């Protein structure tokens, strides 16, 4: 019941917005997103009050609700789609992250006046789609929610975006749609190869493991599990984004309005990573193991390519977009290392995968904070070009402080959540994939390079008198930044709560995998 509320209430609020006058829109949206965020927090605390909390696993999710939705049998042919929602350790942090970032996105959109009703309605429908992806426990329902977020995001970028918004919006739409066509083919394949009886995650987690076998493919045989993994992965790889399918991201992130960029980077990218871990790793582990070395190499390319492209940028938002690509590489690295073959202690794999999943959460908060900061600056200065600024920290000390916090968190300063996640990933990955781990660790240095250099060029040094009229961030503008900073610091100093949520699920997943991997 709680999950149904969390998933559908935003869309309901979006419809309600259409009925009320425009001056109430922002309040309705803010209220609705706050309610959803608090409800998502209750997912965690509601389990905590029960004593020794069991946050659920894929076989046995918490807050579970399953009702038959489509149930048809024609001869030997079955089609069962259940309305199945639940949470486990992997999806709960994601749901909370989505609730938090959407609420902050609504707050940071307070200054928007152009067609505000449509804007807020689309934002809330987007939240429903993403919540559904994280909360669902049925494979077809997963794909159903996966496609919902396409059109709201397309319209959000195309209407309220920057100069090249139409190009960016169409590129996003077509790229993502082509990827998800591959994912659908993978879903069909995995469904029919596991008997075609039902599509619930529990079913696949238990039978999907046995997906060995080969497909005849133009004369050679290919492992069935690998084919399924690659088909499913294609759609997720576009979203994560993985090099070389990342080219939609710089355009989309740069041209989108601030709040939309935050949601794009903070939440939509995590949808891809979540799909990778839950579906690819969970249901086609043999294929994951076979692909793991390549995935490791691609992860290192993500990190280094993204970092170096980021260093070359003059536009702040594009720099942060490429840094997003770079930091998602750590998630890929952790996943690759956890599934790679090799006889290492299970604890290393657990560390790698826990780090990857933690990086999903922290990257959402950190990148969200970065985009919010740039948004505040752009709102005042109407430019994002680093080189025209100089010493504006003298006029905007609060923004300088918060922006710096975000940058330091991004490069993995101890005491902030980025460090915890990256440390876990590197330590765990070194055991199975040492070379790519060393290469990826270099990304930390590069991140320091481009971000600190950007801060120095734009904020420090003598004040460029052209900008002497700039005012500091107001309380409303600083609110999302402060909120995210607190989360980052809390997780950085005391990561135990969130790691305790993630670990059991991750461990259970790895134990299941080990039946096939070893």
């Amino acid at each position, binding site marked *: 019941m709680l999950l149904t509320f969390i998933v559908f209430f935003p869309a309901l609020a979006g419809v309600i917005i*259409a009925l009320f006058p425009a001056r109430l829109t922002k309040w309705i949206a803010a209220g609705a997103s706050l309610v959803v965020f608090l409800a998502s927090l209750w997912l965690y605390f509601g389990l905590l009050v029960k004593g020794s909390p069991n946050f659920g696993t894929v076989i046995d999710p918490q807050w579970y609700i399953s009702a*038959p*939705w*489509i*149930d*048809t049998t*024609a*001869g030997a*042919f079955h*089609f069962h789609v259940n309305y199945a929602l639940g949470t486990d350790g992997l999806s709960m942090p994601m749901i909370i992250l989505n609730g938090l970032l959407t609420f902050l996105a609504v707050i940071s959109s307070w200054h928007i006046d152009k067609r505000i009703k*449509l804007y807020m309605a689309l934002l809330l429908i987007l939240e429903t789609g993403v919540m559904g992806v994280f909360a669902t426990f049925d494979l*077809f329902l997963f*794909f*159903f*929610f996966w*496609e*919902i977020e*396409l*059109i709201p995001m*397309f*319209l959000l970028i*195309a*209407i309220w975006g920057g100069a090249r918004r*139409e190009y960016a*919006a169409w590129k996003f*739409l*077509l790229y993502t*749609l*082509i990827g998800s*066509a591959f994912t*659908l*083919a993978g879903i*069909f*394949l995995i*469904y*029919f190869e596991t008997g*075609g009886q039902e599509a619930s995650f529990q079913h696949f987690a238990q039978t999907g493991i046995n997906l060995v076998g080969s497909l005849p493919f133009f004369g050679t045989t290919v492992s069935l599990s690998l084919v399924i993994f690659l088909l499913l992965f294609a759609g997720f790889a576009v979203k994560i984004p993985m090099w070389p399918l990342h080219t939609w991201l710089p355009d989309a992130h740069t041209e989108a309005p601030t709040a939309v960029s935050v949601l794009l980077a903070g939440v939509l990218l995590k949808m891809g990573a979540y799909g990778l871990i839950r579906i690819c790793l969970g249901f086609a582990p043999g294929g994951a193991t076979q692909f793991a070395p390549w995935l490791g190499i691609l992860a290192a390319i993500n990190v280094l390519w993204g970092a170096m492209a980021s260093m070359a940028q003059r536009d702040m938002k594009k720099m942060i977009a490429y840094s997003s690509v770079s930091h998602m590489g750590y998630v890929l690295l952790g996943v690759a290392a956890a599934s790679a073959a090799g006889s290492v202690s299970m604890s290393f794999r657990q560390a790698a995968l826990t780090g990857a999943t933690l990086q999903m959460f922290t990257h959402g908060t950190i990148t969200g904070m970065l985009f919010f900061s740039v948004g505040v600056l752009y709102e005042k200065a109407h430019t994002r070009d680093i080189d025209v600024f100089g010493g504006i920290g003298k006029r905007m000390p609060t923004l300088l402080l918060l922006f710096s916090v975000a940058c330091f968190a991004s490069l993995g300063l101890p005491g902030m959540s980025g460090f915890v996640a990256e440390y876990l990933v590197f330590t765990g990955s070194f055991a199975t994939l040492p070379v790519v781990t060393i290469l990826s660790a270099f990304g930390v240095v590069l991140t320091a390079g481009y971000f600190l250099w950007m801060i120095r060029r734009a904020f420090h040094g003598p004040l460029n008198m052209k900008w002497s009229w700039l005012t500091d961030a107001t309380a409303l503008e600083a609110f999302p930044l402060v909120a995210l900073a607190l989360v980052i610091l809390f997780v950085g100093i005391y990561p135990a709560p969130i790691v305790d949520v993630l670990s059991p699920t991750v461990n259970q997943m790895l134990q299941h995998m080990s039946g096939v991997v070893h």
Partner: protein
Amino acid sequence: MLSPELSVVLLSFVVLGLDLVTRRKTAVWLTALIGLIIPTLLTFSLIYNTFGSHPRTAFYGMLVVDNYAIFFKLLFMAIGFGVILVSYQYVEKYLRATPGEYYSIILMSLAGMMLMGSTGELISVYISLELTSIPLYILAGLSRRDSRSAEAAVKYVLLGAMSSAILLYGMALLYGATGTTDLLEIAAATKNVLHTGNLLLLVAEVFIFAGFGFKISAVPFHMWAPDIYEGAPTPSTLFFSVGSKAAGFAALLRVFVFGGLTGANGTYLWVMVAIVAALTMTLGNVVAILQTNIKRMMAYSSIGQAGYLLVGFATLIIHNTVVGDEAMLAFLFVFVVTNIGAFTGVIALADATGKESIRDFDGFGRGSPLIAGGMALCLLALAGIPPMAGFLSKLFIFYAAWGQGSGMTLLVILGLVNSVISIVYYANIVYRMFVVEPAKREFFRIPGAVTATMAVSVVAILAITVVFGPLLTQAGIAAASLFGR
């Protein structure tokens, strides 16, 4: 047993006569609209009569009333209701035809369509086909001042006559091969007497498929669709696109499945249908991108949708499975609802501005947000975007096809590629409506009937998503009755 069709014909005469008597257009329209309730109730009473028993036949098996026939009768009632509802103001403003003529012609055609699903014998297939088509020819040309409308009507007559001729020739060959025109006896003959590879039977099947292929606008029989959709008055176009297509599929399935033509020559038929399906999907979707007139674009989009339906038909043929039929019926149902909604948006635009090109949709989202929003939902449903029902119906058709075998997998992959291609032109309309700023800001007054139709369509599309399970079950019952004889 003929009562629904008879009551529709009677209603058509009543409406025609009423138009002579009264000058009040509303009375005529309301009579047509509310009068449709009577055939609907009679159809429901037929359900009551066929429950638990084998299908009822009449006229020595020329007429069959089974669950399949009832499914289509109800579908056509819904189509008739939708078309009559939406065309209220358009008829007055643009057609300069007396409304009584217009509604009575629609009802006549509707009666023919209802018969198409109920036929049990080749000649009655042809009779109902003609009863459906000839009023459609008139409907295409009803916009008397418009030369394009007259051109559309003439093209339709010529091409329709030619396709009927091909169909009749195929039927004649079938009669020659089997010695009977009764579909059940043809089925028995193909199962017992005729063997796979019988050339006469194969040629007959190809000709019959070609004849029906025209009605469902399959490639390469699709050439009429863009010109005629563009030239005809928009409510007529709506009626062609949903009614003619549904009727064509109703008869196609009836002849091929009920008449057992898939029993012999199964592999050849499957290859032919698969190739036609692939061509239809691809041509429809790719050419639609290039269009500048909304009605032409909708014509090509309908061709693409027919391609997906033919994928379902191929699924049906390859292993003679019920699920392909079920998928097609569910898809048809959703397609009807969605297309009615989409064309309502086109009619709304025509009502407001009198124009028909895609550019005229610029900024429509500002001018009338509800209609534009509804149309966006319908177009995205056609593209297969959730949460509209179009996503589920497309998913199910591809899913049923994938489960059949290696050749079908390639067809599904092509279908998925086409779905991605189709988003380009569907999303383009949404983009024009909501993103592009119009040349001048104006608020459109949309007639009440149009808004009502749009509201019904949108609610239906979203509601069907929730009750898709029951819809599939009903479609399955209808499909099974076609098989179990």
